[in-house]
């Protein structure tokens, strides 16, 4: 069987991003394998360990994505295909380009992150399934393969359901699907020699980004000193929560 994880490289959530001339400036950000995609990588490795076959990483993004691809290979995936294009592509256009590569690979299972940390978008997985004409299960928390079908548990808005789905199919990840392994030193050294097939592409984005800004999250930063008169501080806190924050 063949298992594919579609991955992306995103800024570390703890990185401090800057805006330069209306664009997010990534130069001082740490770029990492998207943590939601990390569950996908872990899952394809586990599926391969259980069912045999091959685990393949597929990525679409600029040249810099290679470092994230290497991380996925260091975790244990066999090889990678990197569709290389600089600049922004909307998820639908990405999915169309990825679908072409995926069709050629003909995997049984495709996994990708339930959410893309940089766009805060959940579109990529379903869009890939749409482009391939395959079924999709979103927010997957458990995945078992049996007799050419998959049995998956996935989260809904206010609950969960277990589904049986024919393969090939696309699954998007949810926290709890697994616990991703750390790339080990031997794994990192082996990954250096694994194949990354680079395919330059030139897809035309359907969406053009004109300007970006970062939401300012400023706090009121009101600090009450409870060391001198805790009773008065507690009363003041209740008054503020009631009258100003209006939460009680």
């Amino acid at each position, binding site marked *: 069987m063949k298992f594919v994880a579609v991955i992306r490289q995103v800024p570390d959530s703890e990185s401090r991003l800057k805006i330069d001339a209306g664009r997010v400036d990534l130069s001082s950000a740490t770029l990492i394998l998207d943590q939601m995609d990390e569950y996908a990588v872990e899952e394809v490795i586990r599926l391969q360990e259980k069912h045999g076959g091959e685990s393949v990483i597929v990525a679409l993004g600029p040249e810099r994505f290679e470092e994230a691809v290497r991380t996925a290979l*260091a975790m244990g995936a066999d090889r990678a295909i990197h569709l290389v294009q600089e600049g922004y592509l909307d998820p639908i256009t990405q999915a169309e380009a990825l679908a072409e590569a995926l069709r050629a690979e003909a995997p049984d299972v495709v996994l990708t992150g339930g959410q893309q940390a940089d766009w805060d978008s959940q579109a990529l997985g379903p869009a890939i399934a749409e482009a391939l004409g395959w079924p999709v299960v979103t927010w997957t928390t458990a995945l078992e393969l049996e007799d050419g079908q998959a049995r998956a548990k996935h989260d809904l808005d206010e609950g969960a359901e277990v589904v049986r789905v024919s393969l090939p199919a696309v699954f998007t990840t949810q926290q709890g699907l697994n616990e991703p392994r750390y790339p080990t*030193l031997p794994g990192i050294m082996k990954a250096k020699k694994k194949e990354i097939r680079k395919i330059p592409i030139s897809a035309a984005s359907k969406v053009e980004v004109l300007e970006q800004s970062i939401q300012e999250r400023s706090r009121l930063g009101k600090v009450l000193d409870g060391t001198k008169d805790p009773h008065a501080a507690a009363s003041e806190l209740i008054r503020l929560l009631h009258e100003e924050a209006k939460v009680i």
Partner: protein
Amino acid sequence: MVTTSSGTQMLDYLGLSELFTPEEREIQRSSRRFLDDVALPYIGQWWEEGSFPTHLIRRFGEMGFLGPTIPAEYGGAGVSSAAYGLIAYELERVDSGLRSFCSVQSSLVMYPIYAFGSEEQKREYLPKLATGELVGCFGLTEPDGGSDPDGNMKTRARKDGDGYVLTGTKMWITNGNLAHIAIVWAKDDGGVVRGFIVPTDTPGFKANEVRHKASLRASVTSELVLEDVRVPASAVLPGVKGLKGPLSCLTQARFGIAWGALGALEAVYTEALAFSQTRTTFGKPIGSRQLVQEKLVRMLSDHTKGLLVAWRLAQLKDAGKLRPQQVSLGKRDNVRAALNAARSAREILGGSGITLEYHSIRHMLNLETVDTYEGTHDIHTLILGRDITGLNALE
């Protein structure tokens, strides 16, 4: 330009990580993530209890932290010296005790077996030391003093039939009570220093744990007592005679310490910086005060220069051009810089700085040991003094 650490990003004011290979960067990130999950949240407690986290030994082995530069055929990961340095950095960012464990296993036990051992010794011990199935310790220093290992060495290896009988006492031995094997340095009948691989369950071998430490509390320190410990001739490390054997091991370990100390420096700097931005006095954050800024800048400056030194040492080491005196410079300066930074950080933290809720005082106390072991600050000063003047102050 990275002025503080965040996520898996190390403190790196001059963007030095651009000089690392992609594998070295990956190793740094992965090590930090692993250690932030399994060690950092608990280290204060381990330190306070005076316990070393033995459950992590196998995890260190899985990660490849034990003997990382040893070739894969002997169970190592075959990584570069800078990668080894980055592992030391990440371990010591958590605690000098964790780094000490790995330094001893990698540089003082696996290295001499790899460099001076017979093929049989390498095959027997290295793979098990790499997984953490076996733990080793290194016995050079004796109770009468560590700075003159030749003059103070009373441990003897008397030839007896086909084997040797070892008698003597070793002191301040990291991992002593955890170890399955000890690399023991002793003088033979001709007064020549030889190295022996001694299983610690050999009759006559005893390890006594050093208690009441106010430093390196998350690390096992022991006295080794050898009373007529009989070992076969096959226990001798055949590849080296004389003090250069143990000293070459120490050069390996000191190289790692030159990196490791900067991890501790990053930890205390980051903690002090964050504290200075939130703690307010007289209506302003203390980070706005000149006296505090000067301390923070000195820490950042020392870290930045120290990292350049450490990186250059790694390049020289991989090129086979590294001189022990150059390692002395890195160990001496980076550890003292980290110790000074920890003291400053403790001061910036004020009253909070005296508790183990914060990391700085733990690093400060640990670094007193790191400044002393593996060649004291003053001894390294005199090694460098001898190197530049040609005049020996060590005799």
